[in-house]
């Protein structure tokens, strides 16, 4: 990066001196107000059209703008949430009053469509979802991704585990890969953010990856979780390839562009908010009620003895383990201010959160400083700096081969057994290798992240005339973090005491640096009064470097935690280096504001490709026509706005950085280092996956602009799919990456927005988002194979031509011996419904908001049930076994009557190996995602009471995931033992249970 910085610096310096200021010009003063209420709008942007030259309104809405070198100009006034206004000024102008209208349906919102260009929403040829600060956070959230749940069509946000600190999958427009990366590209203020999920190494203690599956199962946090949601001004989601093509080979899963808050000129505004709340268990799975006979049957004579000795007591271990009411607190302060030349935003956040399991929790401390400074009327520099520290204590949950995780241990803990500590002593568990209450109280699984995200942007106008402008934009950024993972399994624990080297200490250190440099040129040209051409071109340099090391020490000296206070150690290291180079060129044509056409091309080379010198090309072309602007549009009063749009684009998904190498892996015997071929053979000609998308739709406004409808259909053809071609192990290798196979994904997105009431005293907005997506494997160059899960009979996913890639199969076969499809992890559809009601009374303003999220279908392999069956503690263990209660497929050969024991639990176990269906459940749910009720004290009261020192005062309550309706029998149908994998999600092995959160909020401005 050193080289780039030098270059950037030279460019900056040269361009700085190249700037010339000339005498003469005009001066404009004015005021920006809300057209309806007459209230001033502070922070509205006033720019000379086509340039960066401009200013912003102060706290009273007042602005002063001097424009050199000209005697007339066209001013563009933009304000978030309001329709853009354009005015022409000639000569010096005073007291220009600009009334702006609220843009509830976001028609004139400006949307970023590339590295340096923006388009008004009304012209957009893609269904780009945008969301602003208020919409993003009606209820507080632990991590950013959670706040996106249910917010728009085409996105599916699914948590992997309820553990504090996140671990969330964000899927845009369905499955697009089998083996490649699944998460969208996150760009924050021009920097590509690392969103890796780095394993803690806890698998070394739980041995989760030692048997059925070797995939890591530490259920880590993905690092986008670090971003402070309160800093976000807006989020734009480029959902598919047609919108994201300009991001090339990183954009197959979509791009999420995050813009943080900026300063506002004028009196410095201070916002302070304080929230308190608590977490509590969302749902219990219940446990079996034992009788003496059942205790004898399940746990032998010892079980019966204990049952009798304890008088058959019933201890609710879910209450013991998950019954904590975790205290939450969030303090957030921000300052926004500045002058016409310089503006700043400074924020601080302290959030602490206790989990529903003792000794678990999450803490985040973040600070941000955003500065924008105008060097001259032709150049502007912006710097965004962000420091974040997050700490999470995640406990030990999920899959396990040592029976130490809480869920597994409780499955083997019948309610009549008392393992609660007495006088500080934890009794040994007679039926399980660990006492989970002891583990919970002394086991440590901590993740600590320190992160800096710094970016800068320099804009220079190189040339401008009445008809043309040429701008040069440099963006450079660094995302650096260090992550420390600490796992301590103290030697006094039951399962450690019997080990050869009791006690384990794991220390993982990861250092990651992402850096990028973008150089862009943008040329605007008014070919005639009605045709505007925008040409953009640029170069991209992107580097990523990650170094992960892990030391595992065993034989820990009691009470000690350091890795050197132990008798034996092992260490592991992995480095990931990725370097990408790209270019793009793009042309946009705007004809009379009615027809809008774009064509672009991106080229990308990457060190991850088999041929690192080769540039892969990603074209895009799209267009939109605002039919309602043409004279033939006869229904202008009924449908004031109607746009049809179509877009085509291609993107890629880069191969994993190590796919091209055949590795030799280290081993050791008797102190002598050895090398063995890795189980994966390198692929010399690996290339990116390619997604081509065609998207079509229309946007319409009805009812005097009080209703909007957005309809989008998309179809994606994905080719060159990465496949891990299974090599026969007799070759010495188990697998090899190849490009082969095709997949098609189709979907429909419908968004309906309505403003049923718009009066002075009530503004009510309602929105419904509907989303449905289907994927199908259309070609497979390898044999059909099973992917994900632990084994076929424990439920797995079948990759086969003509099938959905998320098809679930198991051991079940029909009378002809054909495999029966047991389900599909992809939901049938998703529907969210939100209502936002703003009441304006003389005694203050009230806001009521709620968001329901309904996911229909989407099956889950609930192996948690199998674990509780094995422990004979399933809540429905003694229920009668029928074909229906066993969920057996009608065409299967296995029937409930095959069971010698007609109770559900024993029958499920008896059928295990022949039928997996009893463990595949429907994951349909309806959740009350967000609820918020707030009250704002009227301005007049504040003026009287605080003498104007307090600009607003708001109190309220809010909650997240307050209600869940589902028939799913695990803790939450949103689950993924294997984290953010494309295929192999929706497997439940008793994760950290989900919680509901409830807050009391207070905020005020100074």
């Amino acid at each position: 990066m050193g080289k780039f910085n030098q270059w950037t610096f030279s460019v900056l310096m040269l361009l700085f001196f190249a700037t010339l200021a000339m005498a003469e010009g005009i001066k404009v003063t004015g005021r920006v107000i809300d057209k309806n209420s007459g209230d001033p709008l502070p922070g509205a942007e006033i720019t000379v059209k086509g340039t960066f030259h401009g200013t912003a309104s102060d706290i009273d809405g007042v602005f002063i703008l001097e424009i050199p070198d000209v005697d007339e100009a066209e001013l563009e006034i933009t304000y978030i949430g309001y329709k853009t206004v354009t005015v022409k000024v000639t000569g010096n102008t005073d007291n220009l009053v600009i009334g702006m209208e609220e843009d509830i349906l976001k028609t004139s919102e400006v949307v970023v469509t590339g590295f340096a260009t923006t388009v008004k929403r009304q012209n957009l040829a893609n269904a780009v979802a945008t969301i602003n600060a208020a919409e993003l956070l009606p209820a507080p959230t632990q991590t950013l991704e959670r706040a996106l749940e249910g917010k728009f069509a085409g996105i599916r946000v699914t948590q992997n585990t309820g553990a504090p600190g996140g671990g969330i999958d964000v899927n845009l427009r369905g499955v697009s890969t089998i083996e490649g990366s699944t998460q969208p590209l996150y760009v924050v203020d021009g920097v590509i953010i690392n969103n890796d999920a780095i394993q803690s190494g806890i698998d070394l203690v739980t041995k989760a990856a030692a048997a059925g599956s070797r995939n890591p199962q530490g259920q880590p946090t993905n690092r986008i979780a670090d971003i402070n949601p309160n800093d976000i001004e807006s989020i734009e989601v480029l959902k598919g390839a047609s919108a994201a093509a300009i991001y090339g080979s990183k954009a197959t899963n979509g791009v999420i562009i995050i813009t943080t808050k900026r300063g506002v000129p004028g009196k410095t505004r201070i916002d302070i908010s304080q929230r308190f709340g608590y977490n509590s268990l969302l749902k219990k799975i219940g446990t079996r009620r034992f009788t003496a006979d059942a205790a004898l049957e399940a746990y032998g004579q010892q079980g019966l003895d204990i049952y009798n000795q304890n008088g058959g007591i019933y201890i609710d271990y879910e209450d013991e383990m998950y019954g904590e009411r975790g205290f939450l607190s969030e303090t957030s302060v921000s300052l926004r201010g500045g002058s016409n030349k310089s503006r700043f935003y400074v924020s601080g956040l302290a959030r602490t959160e206790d989990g529903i399991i003792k000794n678990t929790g999450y803490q985040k401390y973040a600070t941000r400083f955003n500065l924008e400074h105008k060097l001259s009327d032709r150049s502007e520099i912006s710097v965004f700096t962000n420091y974040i520290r997050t700490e999470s204590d995640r406990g030990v949950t999920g899959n396990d081969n040592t029976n130490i995780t809480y869920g597994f241990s409780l499955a083997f803990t019948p309610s009549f057994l008392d393992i609660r500590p007495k006088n500080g002593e934890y009794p040994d568990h007679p039926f399980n290798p660990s006492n989970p209450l002891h583990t919970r109280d002394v086991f440590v699984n901590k993740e600590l992240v320190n992160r800096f995200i710094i970016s800068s942007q320099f804009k220079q106008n190189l040339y401008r005339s009445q008809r043309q402008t040429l701008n040069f934009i440099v963006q450079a950024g660094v995302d650096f973090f260090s992550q420390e993972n600490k796992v301590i399994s103290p030697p006094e624990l039951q399962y450690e005491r019997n080990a050869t080297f009791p006690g384990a200490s794991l220390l993982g250190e990861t250092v990651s640096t992402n850096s990028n440099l973008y150089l862009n040129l943008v040329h605007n040209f008014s070919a005639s009064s009605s045709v505007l051409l925008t040409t953009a071109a640029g170069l991209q340099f992107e580097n990523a470097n990650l170094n992960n090391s892990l030391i595992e020490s065993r034989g820990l000296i009691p009470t000690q935690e350091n890795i050197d206070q132990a008798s034996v150690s092992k260490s592991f290291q992995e480095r990931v280096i990725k370097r990408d180079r790209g270019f793009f060129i793009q042309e946009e044509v705007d004809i009379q504001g009615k027809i809008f056409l774009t064509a672009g091309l991106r080229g990308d080379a990457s060190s991850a490709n088999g041929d690192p010198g080769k540039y892969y090309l990603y074209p895009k072309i799209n267009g939109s026509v605002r039919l309602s602007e043409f004279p033939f549009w006869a229904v202008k009063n009924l449908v004031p706005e109607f746009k049809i749009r179509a877009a085509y684009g291609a993107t890629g998904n880069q191969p994993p950085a190590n796919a091209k190498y055949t590795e030799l892996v280290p081993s050791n015997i008797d102190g002598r280092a050895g090398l063995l071929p890795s189980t994966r053979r390198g692929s010399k000609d690996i290339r990116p996956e390619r997604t081509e998308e065609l998207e079509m739709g229309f946007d319409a406004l009805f009812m005097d602009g009080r209703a909007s409808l957005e309809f989008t259909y998309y179809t994606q053809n994905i080719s060159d799919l990465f496949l891990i071609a299974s090599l026969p192990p007799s070759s010495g290798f188990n697998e090899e990456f190849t490009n082969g196979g095709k997949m098609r994904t189709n979907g429909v997105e419908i968004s309906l927005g309505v403003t049923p009431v718009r009066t002075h005293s009530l503004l009510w907005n309602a929105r419904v988002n509907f989303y449905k997506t289907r994927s199908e494997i259309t070609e497979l160059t390898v044999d059909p194979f099973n992917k994900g899960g632990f084994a076929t009979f424990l439920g797995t996913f079948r990759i086969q031509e003509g099938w959905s890639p998320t098809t679930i199969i198991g051991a079940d076969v029909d009378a002809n011996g054909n495999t029966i499809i047991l389900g599909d992890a992809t939901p049938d559809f998703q529907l969210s419904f939100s209502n936002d009601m703003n009441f304006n009374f003389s005694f203050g303003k009230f806001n009521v908001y709620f968001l329901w999220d309904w996911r229909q279908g989407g099956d889950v392999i609930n192996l948690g049930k199998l674990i509780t069956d094995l422990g004979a503690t399933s809540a429905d263990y003694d229920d009668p076994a029928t074909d229906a209660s066993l969920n057996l497929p009608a065409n299967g050969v296995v029937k409930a009557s095959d069971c010698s024991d007609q109770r559900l639990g024993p029958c499920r176990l008896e059928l295990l190996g022949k039928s997996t269906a009893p463990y595949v459940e429907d994951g349909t749910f309806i959740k009350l995602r967000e609820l918020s009720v707030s009250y704002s004290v009227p301005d007049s009261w504040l003026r009287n009471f605080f003498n104007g020192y307090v600009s607003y005062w708001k109190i309220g309550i809010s909650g997240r995931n307050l209600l869940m309706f589902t028939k799913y029998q695990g803790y939450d149908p949103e689950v993924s033992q294997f984290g953010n994998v494309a295929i192999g999600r929706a497997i439940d092995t008793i994760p950290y249970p989900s919680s509901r959160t409830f807050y009391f909020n207070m905020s005020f401005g100074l």
Partner: protein
Amino acid sequence: MRNIPLQKTQLFRTILILVGLASLMMLSCGELNFPNPNAPDLENVPIQTLVSGAEAGMRIDYAIYLRAVSVVGREAYYFEPADPRYTGELLFGRPDPGGFIVNRPWSARYRVVADCRFLLDKANNFSGAEKAGIEGFAKTIMAYQLLLNLNYLDENGIKLDFSGDLNAPMASKAEAFAFIEQNLDEGYTALQAAGDAFPFQLSSGFSGFDNPEGFAKFNRALRARVAIYQNKFQDALDALDASFIDPNAPMDLGVYMVYGTGLGDQTNEIYENPEAPFVKFMAHPSFETDAEAGDQRFASKVFKRSDVTKFDDLTTDLAITVTESDVDRLPIIRNEELLLIRAEANIGLGKLADAQTDINVVRQAAGLGPVTLTDADQAINQLLHERRYSLFIEGHRWVDMRRFGRLDALPIDRPDKDKILDKMPIPETELPESGG
């Protein structure tokens, strides 16, 4: 209104900078090509690392193999609460061809075979005794690894085409034996031309067998095992003559896999503290009921716990104590087995007296009185009994009962669902139409 063009020199400079940046990008393409930051390439690794790699690799997933064959052979149970397969499919007699029990040991053995094949390639860079030494080692180890997979799959055969061609057929059991024999014999020939010392060092598991001469004895010991599996009794005796068989030596003289806790080393997963509250790997109760009074092999190889463990309708109170810690060694082949192989060969050749001598040597070492062999049937029964107690948890019981056609004599604990498995299925991954 005037146009305000940028001065020409400035525009020129800007363009120059952009051109400069563009060329930087071109130049930096070289940077995109760099070696693997994490691991070496095959081309430039020394022989020693591959030899140690092979030795280390022999241990990978061997514990799964040993547990599986011990469970199927009704020597032991493996109570794994987190995985129902050890008390399920293995005892039901229908293991999942896609499951890890079938696949992982199989794959790990072939990984060592691949390592040995790399060694054989590399041997061509050497000459004379050094080349012979590398070949002798690689062929012997390769044969041993293939034999373990053949034991696992038996009549299903193994793959002898190592190219990775999915359509390559499985070699039959007879072809596999022939290939294994051939490699052992070629390895033996090479070892005799390998001079006094190997051009590499072996672990302490080969202590006493770590030069070409000693290693050749190990080679012959394996050769005897392969011969006896095919009822080639005279071959077995011939091979034993050149092996390390010695009635006067300790029974545990032999070659071992060794374990450790060093960086990258493996621990012995067979070990569990026999007095832990819950032990997963436990002996089958019949190991106690069938034991002769005073048999030290019984007393030393199991620990009778004060409590009875009940799991999945199986009960036992016998913890396995064949290892003393998780860095204890596991045998590959040892003197006690060689004596019993000789006894078996002699029974096969009708020389009961010779067989009786060896059997009684083994019995004496176990603190038991001598037996008399009267006829072939009784001799076989006695031999199988001795093999069962002498070679407990060494991976023999199931193989032995199978080759003598006596699988149905193994105990069945849950008659309603259990069945004795005769061979592991062909791993799904070796067949063109996998799964479905």
